[in-house]
């Protein structure tokens, strides 16, 4: 049996599509882990990036920490947190949040800092207060960068949530590690394909979000700048 046949057989087996260990359930688990971690990371990193970007204070420190964090190996962080807190969903979530915060923070901060000072001057000169400048000018103009940060983080979270299965939780990674243990290659490859599919879905999701959320004036301006 060829590799292709093994994978096709695994996907074709109806037993793999039902129950708590089935593809839909694992897919839902994976989505839930990733979405929860992203929500928490965004709740921490976006306001922090906006605040440091708006005031300019503490920005370099945040940037330095975030850049240093990107040099850390994800599996090291994951295993260290799990070892410290014990096996379970909470330590996995903590590790995912730790990994997702830096890209969101860096991009939000850079996005706000990149807002033309002339625009800030105009906003203040027209009588906008600090929070109004942030919400009506800086956030919308920085939004493409914020979304890029969220996308980068989401891709990484989906990938790392796969590894989380190694420490005993659910998600699509289960297929990969269980398949490895049972020497069932169809299962390993099927799980891998599903993880790759989810990553592509994340890209599509952010592409749609960008179309919906970013002001047309900014999108067109970027397109014009690219040409």
């Amino acid at each position: 049996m060829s590799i292709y046949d093994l994978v096709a057989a695994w996907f074709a087996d109806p037993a793999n599509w039902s129950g708590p260990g089935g593809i839909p359930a694992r897919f839902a688990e994976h989505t839930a882990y990733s979405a929860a971690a992203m929500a928490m990371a965004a709740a921490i990193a976006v306001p922090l990036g906006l605040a440091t970007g708006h005031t300019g204070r503490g920005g370099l420190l945040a940037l330095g920490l975030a850049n240093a964090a990107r040099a850390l190996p994800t599996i090291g962080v994951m295993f260290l947190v799990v070892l410290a807190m014990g096996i379970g969903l909470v330590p996995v979530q903590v590790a995912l949040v730790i990994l997702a915060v830096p890209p969101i923070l860096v991009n939000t901060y850079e996005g706000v800092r990149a807002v033309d000072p002339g625009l800030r001057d105009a906003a203040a000169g027209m009588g906008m207060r600090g929070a109004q400048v942030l919400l009506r000018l800086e956030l919308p103009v920085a939004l493409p960068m914020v979304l890029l940060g969220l996308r980068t983080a989401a891709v990484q979270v989906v990938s790392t949530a796969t590894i989380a299965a190694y420490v005993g939780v659910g998600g699509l990674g289960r297929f990969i590690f269980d398949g490895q243990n049972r020497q069932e290659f169809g299962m390993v490859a099927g799980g891998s394909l599903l993880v790759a599919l989810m990553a592509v879905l994340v890209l599509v999701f952010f592409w749609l979000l960008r179309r919906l959320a970013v002001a047309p004036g900014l999108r067109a301006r970027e397109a014009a700048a690219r040409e």
Partner: protein
Amino acid sequence: MGEAIRWDWIARGLEDPIGTAVLQHLQLSLIPIALGLLAALPLGVAAARWRRLYPPLLTGVNVLYALPSIALFFLLLPYTGLTIWTAVLPLALYTLAILVPNIVDGLDQVPGHVRQAATAMGFGPLRRLVLVELPVAVPAVIAGLRVASVATISMVSVASMVGLGGLGALILREGFNNRFATPIIVGVVLTAVLAFAVDGLLVLAQRLLTPWAPRRGSKGVR
């Protein structure tokens, strides 16, 4: 992880497994970076010249970059077996997502008048590319290499999950599988140290290669 770091374990394992892991880690990360650069240069040059190629190429490398490394490693495993290629090929592909845009941006930074002056002095297209355009693009290329190398060095650790070596193996097999924190901490710290060391070498290389450039590396954000 109640106990503090076990220094005695580190002292005993300096050569093996720590030293071996560092060497394997360097091999597993530097080869993909070099391969990635080799592939990215012609792709970037082509995309800069034939503009219509660029958007689909960019989408392609971005989608590749989004695919989780663990999935690619496992999908390649039956073809490449337990050789370094299982890790090297995907990692090299990932670097394209960072290097290609940087090369294109770098070539775009060559001012039109410089290009025209070179042509006016009788440079052919290839000579102009090698002697004028690529040198001007060096800072942008190195900025891309810095981001790519930090990302690759950190990502190599995942290769341990398919059974390859490097600092990831230290973390996984010596550390987590034995519920022993010291190797994990050593692995994490050494990975970061390697990343910063390679980054520092690249900054140094840029200063040597481009004595004419202003002393502030442009930052790549990813």
